[in-house]
């Protein structure tokens, strides 16, 4: 029996009775634990990995890109709890059962790689970034120092340098973060540190009330960051946008003046290049003028829109971005680098990130190492352990080249244009506004409402259309796209085009399917 050589989980068939007896004879027992034999059966473990990889290959990678498969296999929460055996017990399960669990997890999960998953600002399958993720998962590195993560640290440096080039800076700094929200928070904190370096040690006591400015269309992480950093959400002044969702520079000027009159200290403007819902791009040049005039840090949240920089045709959307002090850019969105892959780029080249965040932990950042310790860049992060997220992007870049990545962006735009043209031709579909990026926001007006007068009652009815169609599409599993109400406008759909797997046929199907699901409303 295996109780003399505890083979935890991974129940091995390879440990024979003779081997067990042999180990018993030569056993070195410490605190009741036998130390002279591994307790993990490597062969069984490797077999498990291979078997599971087969499942992943078939069920996730091959099937999930197949349009005849469902995007999701919807189950309500209480039912799903019963279907999944989630309980964590005292003893482990056999190999076959574990593989079944893997299959169940995959089965009931949403297939974000599916060509008809349009729900969020990420989608699709990139094989190269996937391999990169497998490699980093297997190697399990943390990139705080060169000694533990030599390759990934150098890769991060190279990727940041390249991204900085695309922004238009000659030099700069940066770091990869667990999310655009965290990048935005970093930028806010950096700007505050630049404004008053004493804050790092003394905190906010004794300082004037700090105020920052951002578009009313900004990502909600600005609010979270403001409250997290002790600035307070009411000290985030939201600037009005025009009918296309872009920040109005004159309004920004007004608000800065207002803040000064109130005796507050404006310190940061966060412009958005590619807003979450409408995909709008703030006018960066005019905003930069105002920032320069008032000595404010300009951060550009290009988490979503930054990838347009890859396209010579569309990069003009971010005209003026080189004037920013910091930029957040997420390759895991439009470029499909695999979640998470989010960079914060900083123009300042005086080690500002390090000065702001370093704590000089002596157990990581010893100064007497035998290599150039300037490569130990982990101290510029608020994190200790950090994932090598840049590697996925690097691998993709190696595989596709700048041209390949540019083509992706151009294709997404082209498909978006196609869909817009089709929506304009089709009865019952109405654009919210002419998109400038790959967010296509529209209402579906069922036949029964098409001749209604467009008063409050009409809009009340339209408001209920999207949620019902969404419920139907999810239960059918045919596709997923998001909807939301937004600044006084009732629920509308937000279609996002990203993946190069998506074709014109999928766009036609999208419209047909909405018609099919909502035609009777």
């Amino acid at each position, binding site marked *: 029996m295996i109780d003399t050589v505890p083979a935890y989980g991974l129940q091995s068939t390879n440990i024979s009775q003779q081997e067990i007896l042999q180990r018993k004879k030569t056993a070195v027992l410490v*605190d*009741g634990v036998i130390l002279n034999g591994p307790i993990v059966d490597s062969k069984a473990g490797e077999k498990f990995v291979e078997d599971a990889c087969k499942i992943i290959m078939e069920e996730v990678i091959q099937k999930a890109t197949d349009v005849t498969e469902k995007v999701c296999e919807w189950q309500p929460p209480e039912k799903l709890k019963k279907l999944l055996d989630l309980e964590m017990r005292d003893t482990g399960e056999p190999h076959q059962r574990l593989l079944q669990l893997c299959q169940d997890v995959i089965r009931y999960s949403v297939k974000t790689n599916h060509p008809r998953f349009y729900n969020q600002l990420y989608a699709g399958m990139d094989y190269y970034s996937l391999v990169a993720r497998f490699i980093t998962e297997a190697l399990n590195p943390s990139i705080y120092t060169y000694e533990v993560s030599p390759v990934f640290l150098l890769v991060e440096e190279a990727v940041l340098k390249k991204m900085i080039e695309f922004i238009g800076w000659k030099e700069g700094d940066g770091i990869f973060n667990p999310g655009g929200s965290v990048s935005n928070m970093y930028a806010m904190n950096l700007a505050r540190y630049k404004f008053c370096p004493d804050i790092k040690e003394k905190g906010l006591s004794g300082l004037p009330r700090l105020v920052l400015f951002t578009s009313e269309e900004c990502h909600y992480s600005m609010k979270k960051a403001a*409250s997290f950093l002790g600035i307070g959400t009411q000290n985030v002044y939201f600037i009005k946008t025009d009918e296309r969702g872009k920040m109005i520079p004159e309004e920004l000027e007004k608000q800065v003046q207002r803040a000064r009159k109130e005796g507050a200290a404006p310190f940061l403007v966060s412009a958005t290049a590619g807003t979450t819902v409408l995909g709008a791009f703030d006018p960066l040049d005019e905003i930069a003028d105002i920032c320069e005039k008032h000595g404010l840090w300009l951060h550009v949240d290009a988490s979503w829109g930054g990838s347009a920089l890859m396209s010579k045709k569309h990069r003009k959307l971010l005209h003026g971005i080189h004037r920013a002090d910091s930029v957040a850019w997420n390759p895991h969105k439009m470029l499909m680098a695999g979640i998470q892959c989010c960079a914060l780029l900083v123009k300042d080249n005086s080690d500002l990130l390090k000065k702001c965040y370093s704590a000089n932990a002596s157990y990581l950042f010893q100064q007497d190492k035998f290599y150039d310790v300037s490569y130990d860049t982990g101290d510029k992060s608020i994190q200790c352990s950090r994932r090598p997220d840049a590697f996925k992007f690097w691998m993709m870049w190696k595989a596709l080249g700048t041209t390949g990545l540019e083509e992706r962006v151009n294709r997404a735009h082209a498909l978006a244009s196609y869909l817009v043209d089709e929506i304009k031709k089709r009865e019952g579909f109405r654009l919210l506004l002419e998109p400038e990026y790959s967010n296509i926001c529209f209402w579906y007006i069922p036949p029964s409402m098409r001749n209604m007068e467009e008063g409050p009652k009409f809009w009340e009815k339209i408001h209920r259309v999207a949620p019902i169609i969404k419920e139907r599409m999810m239960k059918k599993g045919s596709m997923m796209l998001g909807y939301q109400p937004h600044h006084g406008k009732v629920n509308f759909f937000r279609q996002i085009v990203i993946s190069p797997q998506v074709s014109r046929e999928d766009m036609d199907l999208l419209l047909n399917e909405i018609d099919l699901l909502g035609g009777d409303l």
Partner: protein
Amino acid sequence: MANGDPLDCPALDKEAGEEFLEEAFRILMEEAVKKGTEVAEKVCDCGEPRARVLERCRDIIRYSVKTCGCPNIPRFSITPCSLITPCPTVTGYVAFLFRYTYEIAPVFVLMEEVVLKKLRELIGWASGDGIFCPGGSLSNMFAMNVARYQRFPDCKRKGNWALPRLAAFTSQEVSQWGAVGFSPGAWEQICNAKSKGAVPFFVNATCGTTVLGAFDPLAEIAEVCSRHGAWLHVDAAWGGSALLSRRHRHLLDGIERWAPCQAVGCNLTPSAGLLQRCHGAHATYLFQTDKFYDLAYDTGDKTIQCGRKVDCLKLWLMWQAYGTRGLEGRVDRAFAYTRYLVDEMKKRPGFQLVIEPEFINLCFWFVPPSLRGRQGDADYELRLGRVAPTIKERMMRKGSMMVSYQPHGTKVNFFRQVVTNPTVTKADLDFFLEEIERLGEDL
């Protein structure tokens, strides 16, 4: 056709992509998973054509440090990952998803709930809340923020300007959080802060400090916290795994009686709903209130992150594979490794313990023959401090193993040996001792 682009077909060659994946899997299995566990292999070896990209994969793996989770290369023991060290290989591959709402990640939202509940049970709480964070550092920050919010809910809107000066307290032993130091005999530091007009709102106790592996006395600290109305946070990022061991969980005695804690890469609190109130921003494009399922399952608004990786899957699948008892076995085994090494070191000349370990951080100096018996020399400390960096350089160039060292307080460089990898055997531990002797005997 729009803009001259062939939009009728997908722009990805699925077959070629899948073939690439299969070849890359083979390389991965060979180079990272299989070879990565071979002791004979070195720990560390210092829009192109597909063959070239595959070659790059091989290079990347070759030049990377093999820390591999499970199975694990036996001779890497540089950082104190959680003792459970969730198996990254299979589970990581499956966890592609990003998670904020039930509709996007139904399985993982439910799974996180179950895992957090299990962890709270281990602590000894009947109910509560929690969330997985990208790192212990962020978990600690969450805790500080939640503590501030609970004491002063207005700070979310008004910022710190609406508050008196706040004071947070933590041990001098704490890794990256230097603050006001305290010891059980110096609680008057808190009173001092109060007398200067500051409000003591947060005390961070550490269960398993990074370098020495020390456990703060929770009961006494909790007593002081309740006297002053301060939130007690327990940073058990490192030591929390000891809760799995019936033999060793006494190290965290008292943890169930007190406030939130951080363990195994997640933030846990006995107060339900607090995380949501503190961090929630109700983004309408994610958290619509007219969805067709129970919105309580859209848990993403409890965090400061938007998208979040599915970290709970790794731990859950491992738990399925090993069971609580299996994981307990790992923890007990790690303690056994330390016990064995301590006993061996006491027998061998040249190994000097910094302190008797209470956890699995084994801190020691190697004193080469030339320095033995010379403690009285004026330059003894200086010379001793140079030993570890030199041995470290030699072991890395040789690629035979990796152990970390650091100075600490007034103590010169010493090694910190931490063994969590369950594939490590007595032979590996003996090798470790002999290798240090080999690499350092001529110093």
